[in-house]
């Protein structure tokens, strides 16, 4: 970690929450810690409970069971305005009747900070997000990206130890989103504020975070560093959600003293198991190798396929290959040379060194 800390700035201890009128719990015994100055992301599909976690930390939802601790103090029953945490809302939630400067000064005004001090610190916060020239504008006179920056300035102006961000980049276009990712990371490093960042965009979570919490149906699916999640997903769900992976059904059939995996009747000699049965294997797009069908015999572990579709993604081509009833996606590095074309027959090989196998 970047900072020698006395302890976690935030701890959730077996937090559970069921919304009134709903039978399924929104959060089911969720526990984790966030260290001071850490960039901590919560990743999951919509409805997985990630926003409920955020709202529970901010104090807008009371957990049914469990505790929320900040810097070691139990704040579970504390109202939002008594908590030392700020939120960047998904919708920005800028006050429409206040200027940019007044919006940014709002938390300071609530704390009773003197007027000159407020002015000084709001200018400073606006400088952090390069919005110092807009202090006298009203929110509706700003673009979406500018509103986003003002919301960020308002959240950091009182230097909270913990900042909550609820899909803050969701409404921005791709270029702005990439710019803001850099802004956020450098701001977070500079201010040493712990970020709890909610997103459903896996690339965003992986590229920015120190650690990522993957949520599914109100439970923790996995908690780890981006590298952990990417290379050692603990479940099919995480593998599919985090890395761009094909989930391929495999059968283990007896072969000599153990069992060998087969896909569509083709044996994969490199994948063996001690038990028989079915499973699913996660193979990332980039580990599916394609080769034009030259008419020669297929090597062991290779499938025959037909190219269905090719997307050019800039740094790579994404090729959709049909192998019998299966659809397999392959990522092929881009080059000037003509790649694959629709309807072409290809040989499909798998690099199984990082493939994850899930029995079941």
């Amino acid at each position, binding site marked *: 970690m970047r900072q020698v800390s006395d302890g976690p700035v935030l701890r959730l201890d077996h937090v559970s929450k069921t919304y009134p009128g709903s039978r399924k719990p929104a959060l089911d015994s969720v526990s984790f810690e966030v260290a001071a100055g850490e960039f901590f992301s919560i990743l999951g599909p919509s409805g997985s409970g990630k926003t409920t976690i955020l709202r529970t930390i901010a*104090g807008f939802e009371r957990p049914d069971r469990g505790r929320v601790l900040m810097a070691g103090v139990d704040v579970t029953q504390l109202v939002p305005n008594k908590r030392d945490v700020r939120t960047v809302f998904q*919708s920005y939630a800028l*006050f*429409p009747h*206040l200027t940019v400067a007044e919006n940014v000064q709002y938390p300071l005004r609530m704390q009773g900070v003197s007027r000159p001090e407020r002015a000084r610190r709001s200018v400073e916060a606006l400088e952090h997000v390069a919005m110092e020239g807009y202090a006298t504008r009203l929110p509706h006179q700003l673009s979406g990206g500018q509103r986003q920056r003002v919301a960020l300035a308002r959240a950091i102006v009182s230097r909270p130890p913990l900042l909550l961000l609820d899909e803050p980049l969701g409404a921005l276009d791709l270029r702005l989103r990439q710019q803001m990712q850099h802004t956020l990371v450098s701001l977070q490093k500079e201010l040493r504020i712990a970020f709890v960042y909610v997103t459903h965009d896996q690339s965003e979570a992986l590229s920015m975070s120190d650690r990522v919490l993957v949520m599914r149906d109100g439970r923790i699916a996995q908690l780890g560093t981006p590298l952990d999640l990417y290379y050692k997903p603990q479940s099919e769900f995480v593998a599919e959600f985090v890395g761009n992976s094909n989930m391929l059904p495999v059968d283990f059939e007896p072969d000599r003293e153990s069992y060998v995996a087969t896909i569509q009747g083709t044996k994969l000699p490199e994948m063996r198991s001690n038990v028989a049965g079915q499973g699913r294997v996660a193979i990332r797009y980039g580990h599916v190798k394609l080769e034009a069908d030259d008419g020669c015999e297929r090597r062991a572990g290779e499938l025959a396929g037909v190219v269905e579709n090719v997307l050019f993604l800039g740094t790579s081509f994404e090729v959709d290959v049909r192998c019998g009833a299966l659809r397999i996606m392959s990522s092929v590095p881009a080059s000037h040379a003509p790649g694959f074309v629709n309807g072409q027959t290809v040989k499909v090989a798998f690099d199984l060194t990082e493939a994850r196998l899930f029995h079941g």
Partner: protein
Amino acid sequence: MASLAEAASAAEVKPRKRLALHIDPVRIPVYAWLLLIVVLPNLLLIAISFLTASNGRLNFVLSFGNYARLLGSAGFWRLLEATLEFSLIASLCGALAAYPMAYFVGRIAHRNKALLTILVLVPLWISLLMRVFSWRLILGQNGVLNSFLVTSGLLEQPSAAFLYTAASVVLTFAYVSIPFVFISCLNAFEKIPAALIEASEDSGASKFQTFCFVIWPLTRRSLAIGFSLAFLVTVGDYVTPSMVGGMNGTTLGVLISSQFGMANNWPYGAALSIALILCVGVVLAVVLWLCPARGVFSGDEGGAAKARTHATPSALTTLSGALFYALAIAFLYAPLLLMVLFSLNDSTLQSFPLQGFTWRWYEALAGNGGLIAAAQRSVIVAVCVVLASTLIGTGFALTLHYRRGPGSQLIELLLALPLAMPAVVLGIVMVLGTELVGVPSGLPRTVVGQASFIMPVTMLLVLTRLRRLDPSLMEASRDLGAGRFRSFVHVIFPLIRGAVISGALLGLTLSADDVMVTLFLSGPSQTLPIWVFNQMRFGFTPSVNAVFTILGAIALTSVVLSQVVVRLRTNALSDMPGD
């Protein structure tokens, strides 16, 4: 040569184009209405205020005599002060009651919000005459308040100090004000996205600070507008003061109406009207200036937080809010219920204890020829006014929406002007207008007069609906091969039908209840409210209670009907985005 021909044809086309830009033939009816119903009558009012009258006849000599007379008249200043004071205090009381009610319904109550809203608004549909009259039942010398005080031993004998005082006018005005302020504020409270409240609390603001720095600045403009509405409605009301005001409760409105009645001095009445309008304008400008609006919702503050959950208010807040709301509702409905009760009471006295159940007041109505004739006239007037207003209002709304041209906004404002005029002034303006164009006295005059303020209501309702439609719907329909007319029939009309129908029903109750404008125009052919009003001046029978109960029931039915229509429409369309 070719270029010459081109130039020639261009020269030929150009003037035609410019002409078309100036007078769009589709907008001619709009201009005609504007001229005949709004502009000319009002100009006439101004013109006539500079004439004089002797023995009820106009002298066509320009003079400032009327203005000199009213400026020098102590009576005028006293009445003006009283008029503004009554309306200001009453609107303020109404605002003090309605603002917390709107806060409760808009931000605290979770369930039955539609019902809670309707309950406050229903009195708007109940005849004003009935509401004012019901206060007489309470405040009068034989009224409920007196009989309660005497029987409970607080008073030796019934007091005359309640009715026919300034206080009774203010009380009745405040009673009338509540729904206007409520509807205006409710909208503002509901529009505040939950995320803004959360952002404020997240920034460390307490509930009180959040109210002061976020909720109040975002709702004060609507409070001011509601206050202004209440002020306008009460300041132009000359019926209430004449019914409950007595000597000390007279207002400028009463004086103005008498210039067009018994005093028969039109020029002086016109000058008084203009003085009243100017004062009202100044008051409203000050009110709106005191409550500035700043910033615009950019539409993205709502976000997901709004759909999810409200921040749950504390039990104490909810309870005290509910209690306040219930008290206010009791205040709104008690007089009305009393009236229903007395209409079934077997006694000519309007006091407790009740003497037993009877239908005889209703039976008496059936044999009353004057009443039945008046009711028939009311039906004829209402049908004519509603038909005309709905057709013209819808047509004008479509014209203004789809044929926007230079000055559209001004035209819209001018068309709605009769709604923003004190009722007593509108009444005399319509007298002048119909006199000028030569509309025969009686029912035709009443129809024109009522349409002058009912047409704008239906037009504005339809226009609001049209503006909320996705503009690309019309384009999509044209793109898919439908012409303008077929696009209207198959796409636009089904979408605005709800607004048209509820506009018609609202127009129906407005027409059936109107006293202020009709009183000036009906002459001997009295409509039902006018007949009742005259009956009450000559003396009271409990049959009046019965008439009002029936009228109230009809009004309620049409409210419920229009709500059902709107509900059905919105349910059918609820899955449309941006709707």
